[in-house]
């Protein structure tokens, strides 16, 4: 899977939890909660949705790596790379 695909699927999961986010205005480098009202329950739901979408086990200790969209994409690149070469 390319980084662009990962980004688009991660963004889709984010919008599923918080459709009030404007994907065109979202700065991928800045933590989501600094740009929108995005609380800890939203965050939890986002992490769960990502885990399901990418069939990953995302331990709670990794949550700090999912603060911005770019962080999330980088995290997914690191954790989905091996599976996706074959897919």
């Amino acid at each position: 899977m390319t980084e662009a695909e990962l980004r688009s699927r991660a963004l889709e999961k984010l919008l599923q939890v918080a459709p009030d986010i404007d994907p065109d205005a979202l700065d991928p480098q800045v933590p989501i909660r600094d740009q929108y009202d995005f609380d800890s329950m939203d965050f939890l739901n986002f992490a769960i949705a990502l885990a399901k979408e990418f069939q990953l086990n995302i331990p709670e200790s990794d949550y700090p790596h999912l603060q911005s969209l770019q962080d999330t994409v980088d995290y997914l690149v690191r954790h989905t790379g091996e599976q996706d070469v074959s897919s």
Partner: protein
Amino acid sequence: MPQQVIRKNSDDWELIPNLLDYDAAREHFSWEHELEMLDGLPGGGLNIAHEAVDRHAADERHNHLALRWLDRNGRATDFTYGDLCALTNRFANVLRDLGVAKGDRVFGLSERVPELYITALGALKNGSVFCPLFSAFGPEPLRSRLSIGEARVLMTTESLYQRKVAPLRDSLPHLQYVLLVRDKTDAECPHGTLDFRALLQSAAESFTIENTDPEDPALLHFTSGTTGKPKGALHVHEAVLAHHASARLALDLHPQDVFWCTADPGWVTGTSYGIIAPLVIGATMIVDREEFDPERWYGILRDQHVSVWYTAPTAVRMMMKHGSALARQFELPALRFMASVGEPLNPEAVRWGEEAFGLPFHDNWWQTETGGIMIANYLSQPVRPGSMGRPLPGIEAAIVSAGDDGKLEVITEAGREGELALKRGWPSMFRTYLYEEARYQKCFRDGWYLTGDLARCDEDGYFWFVGRADDVIKSSGHLIGPFEVESALMEHPAVAEAAVIGIPDPVAGEIVKGFVSLRPDVDATSKAAVETLRREILALARKRLGPAVAPRQIQVENDLPRTRSGKIMRRLLKARELGLPEGDTSTLEGKE
């Protein structure tokens, strides 16, 4: 009844508990005696800010650390009682210089920054009424609260103002002064606002506190009912007696404690126990600018030597998800008491406290209307996991039900469910719902305040929460009125009708779920079209209400259950959703 009682061992106590013997404490307690422990104003009045700040600043606690504020990077800024006295004097002078009078309402809308605390206490010194607003509220809850509360002054940050308040400004005729805490000071303040820090700096440092009467209004807290607008519960300066008593007895706070209440001052817990109570005791309080993060929190407990910690079930359950091993990596020798409030703490969470921190969580119960903790588990007393505990000294609680003649019956039989009621007259009892006296009077009958919570009391006097008597939703410890949410959903042009209920959630207790039916002319033929609409409606609700109030889930349901008179039955919707028996449906029309 589940009875795995957690017993206490006096060898574990580092300080002699303020409440050692429950029955003796109840017998010997009096509010007159509690008042004697406070100072009072030189003119004979009573003022919360004087008891919280000035009386300590005037004695040997002048240089004692009152508030340690942690910024996003964890850097500390310290305020002694002397510092707080000077800063809150300055803010009271700012208000007086602007012509803001006794009884005028001063609102705070901000993340946890030091200026919020200075605003609350300075407003009280001026005799003004302080009202906190939750910073993650969307514009609609803000507009209704600022409007009902006739806010004359609003302290907020520049970014919150621009995002949420500026677009509403024209609809808030009472709002005269907006004081902005700004990161950048090179540019001019936005039109119609003033610079908080500049005003503070140029104000005088000495101030004579307004000689407030114990019955003068001090605090306004909004809460939600089943129907109608949010309710503004008004509290008076005498509430400080209950803040003092409950901090001593339910939280076992001593002046030498370092206390951390994780609640945001936007909710009543964060004001009563995140601003007032620890200062009234003369303790040190920790304020963290950041949101929940387990490692950060454990680091704060350790590095700040927190001795008494007051948190919430949702936070406890989130910590549980991260596992006790993480918590155990942090040595917390100073921590001696942990309490929780918001919704009932499940027995597993109470015991998880022991596994992770070597201490159980002590659940307690109270509401916006009660102003302070009413029922609690105590440091010296056995804990019954899952129970909210026993009434505080000075508080009489009972389970009641309305008899056939309309008279209230006090249920004395152990274990029988009914409505939790409190004998009226404690100092932090709310004195009215602002401009809604009739709604206020409906809360009382035969000398009892009816809480709207269903509960039971066991044979030893421990109270157990059962549920709400109405349709109000309790999510992450906050009450959410379904009407307020439904009104926002109805704003979407495709929505014909909306109904909102709470559904169980393992972390938040309950989450808000909205059901909407679509107008007949709306294209809902394809799955994709319905999904697009569903998201649009959710987006609108989140923008209007903010994530704490908006639904987490929305379902399009074109057949909402209704009574013959056309009213949507939330209760039946909930029964359906949870697969419960639907009960008496004789007034129902619609689905078979």
